């Protein structure tokens, strides 16, 4: 079993780009009793899919609203600073604010995926992570349900670590229910 301590050490090593001590996963963090919360833009179809995938794994999602400050204030109220992990699929603004606030409160960014709509109408996934994590995500084959697949796999995925990080870009047909670009992200506590 992954203890809170090993998770934190692993996550910390990830943030510093050092050798991984452990293989932190959100599932492991959940198992260790650490709270995981999700922030998801449920105004778009992909966001709703992502929420559904998380919910099936016992993670509740806060709805990202027009004022990103609202969801952040709720996070701050519910969890002691640094004591939680946050997973998100949001538009850029909420990601930027969550990432900066997280850093100020003892969290590090352990995952970022950019899911951009391209001028040619395709959706491009630009991911930074381990090769095996990214091939498990299989976003190039997920088509319209890419966000569901991402939600399912990200919880079990080993978070990226230092030297083994890679960037993968795949383009797929534009999902029917998505108008804007989205960012997937995971913030984990520093040791």
């Amino acid at each position, binding site marked *: 079993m992954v203890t809170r301590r090993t998770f934190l050490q692993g996550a*910390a090593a990830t*943030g*510093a780009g050092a050798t991984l001590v452990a293989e932190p996963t959100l599932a492991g963090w959940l198992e260790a009793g650490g709270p995981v919360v999700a922030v998801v833009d449920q105004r778009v179809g992909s966001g709703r899919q992502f929420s559904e995938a998380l919910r099936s794994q016992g993670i509740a999602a806060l709805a990202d609203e*027009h*004022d*990103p*400050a609202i969801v*952040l204030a709720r996070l701050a109220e519910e969890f002691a600073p640094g004591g939680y992990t946050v997973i998100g699929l949001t*538009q*850029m*603004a909420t990601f*930027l*604010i969550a990432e*900066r*606030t997280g*850093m*100020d409160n*003892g969290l*590090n960014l352990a995952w970022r995926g*950019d899911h*951009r*709509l*391209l*001028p*040619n*109408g395709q959706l491009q996934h*630009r991911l930074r992570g381990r090769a095996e994590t990214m091939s498990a995500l299989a976003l190039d084959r997920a088509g319209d349900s890419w966000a569901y697949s991402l939600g399912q796999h990200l919880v079990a995925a080993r978070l990226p670590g230092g030297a083994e990080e890679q960037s993968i870009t795949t383009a797929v047909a534009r999902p029917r229910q998505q*108008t*804007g*670009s*989205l960012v997937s992200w995971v913030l984990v506590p*520093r*040791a």
Partner: protein
Amino acid sequence: MSTRVPQGVSAEVFEDAKARMRAVVGRRWVIDEESQGLASYYDIYSPASEMTTAPSAAVAPANVEELQRVVVIAHELGIPLWTTSAGKNYAYGGPAPREAGMVVLDLKRMNRVLEVDTESAYAVVEPGVSYFQLYEHLQKNKIPLWIDCAAPGWGSVLGNASERGVGYTPYGDHWMMQCGLEVMLADGTLFRTGMGAMENSNTWNLFKYGYGPYLDGIFSQSNFGIITKMGIWLMPEPPGHMPFMITLPREDDLHMATDILRPLKINMVIPNGVLTPDLIWESATKVPRSKYYTGKGPMPDSARKKMAKDLDMGQWNVIAGLYGPQPIIDANWGVIRDAFAKIPGAKFYTGDDRPGDVSWEYRKKLMRGEPNLTEFNLMNWVGGGGHVNFSPISPTTGDDAVKQYEMIRSRAHEYGFDYMGEFAVGWREMHHIFMLMFNRTDEAETKRAYELFSLLIDEAAAEGYGEYRTNLHYMDHIAKTYGYNDDALWKLHRRIKRALDPKGILSPGKQGIWPLES
């Protein structure tokens, strides 16, 4: 041992400095490459690599005494300190220093609201107090005073004012509403300005000028000292308030609208900072660009027209508020309506009109001093995270507004970007804010954004327009445009710098003021 060190400082001296600073503030509050969290001081939004301004460390004292000891160590060892308060200076560089390797002096732990005087309507704050925090303090204590905040509520009351930032109530000129500073110099000397120089002053935060030379201004947008406390006037909750928006259907309505606004502002019929955002700015907090256009280059007219129609927005949108007893509001609203009714197709909205309109909601909040972060949704327009503000000052005339708009828009389009801008009308002039949004994950686009910004500086200067504030990467460039009489003003700044901070340890390069240049 850290690999990044301040320029001109040896690794040994730097390690010594950090060890001594740790002894003052505690291990946790000296953050370097080996500890976690230094990345939170990177500028990850500007059109240049964050490594060009990545600090070597950050140090965060908890109070004036710790700060003084840190400054004395830095002074002795020649360590450059880049001061930030909340450090949320996004669009202008965030918390990052002017040059890679400098040490961020992070004052966010000094975050006490020291005093709120309900009768005389002012507060005294430390640097780390955010708009959210001051607002909550007033709410919790049921104090009937309003704050005036910049659009991002996580900013610092003091940091923003020191940058001469702006807000949206009648107290929107933040530096004007500042009264009484406490400042630390590079050698650790601490003093108070204005009436605060008296031992037992009871008017430090009531009367700005004191006795003798008035110095406060030289500590704004400057690197002459570190502001450690600031008095800020707060607006008494008015007996009435009416926010309004006037949408204008054509791009060339900007001319007439600006000429109408000038006398309304100068005569104080409109008491707050009037904004005239364009269609894209006012829509971008509601919808991503890709909802209307996924092609390359600037959004075409056909898509703009559809978006304006769907969202019921104007090509320009005049946004302001009226404050005071209802009969006065009614009388002033009559004057404003009559004036704008001359623009064919102008539509008028007040208060609860436009239910569900996200941008109108946050604008209304800002005009009554309620902090929020909704304007950050502008980042969703392109979705790539990159943004930088080009902010020239303009006379409040239709001719100038149109000239600046056309100049910036045509260059933006040429470089493949949308024009997203607004004019903020102050007492006699306008701050024209062009928010250049770009996809920072696209290297070529980021480079184009950088080049466009540089070109705009030169072209604006050639027409007599200068910027009121800028991003880290353009501080030297813009300083050079203020070159009257053989750079006389910047030469004077440098003389003051050398007199107050001969070792040049405080925020070197801030606004183009480098310590050792002549």
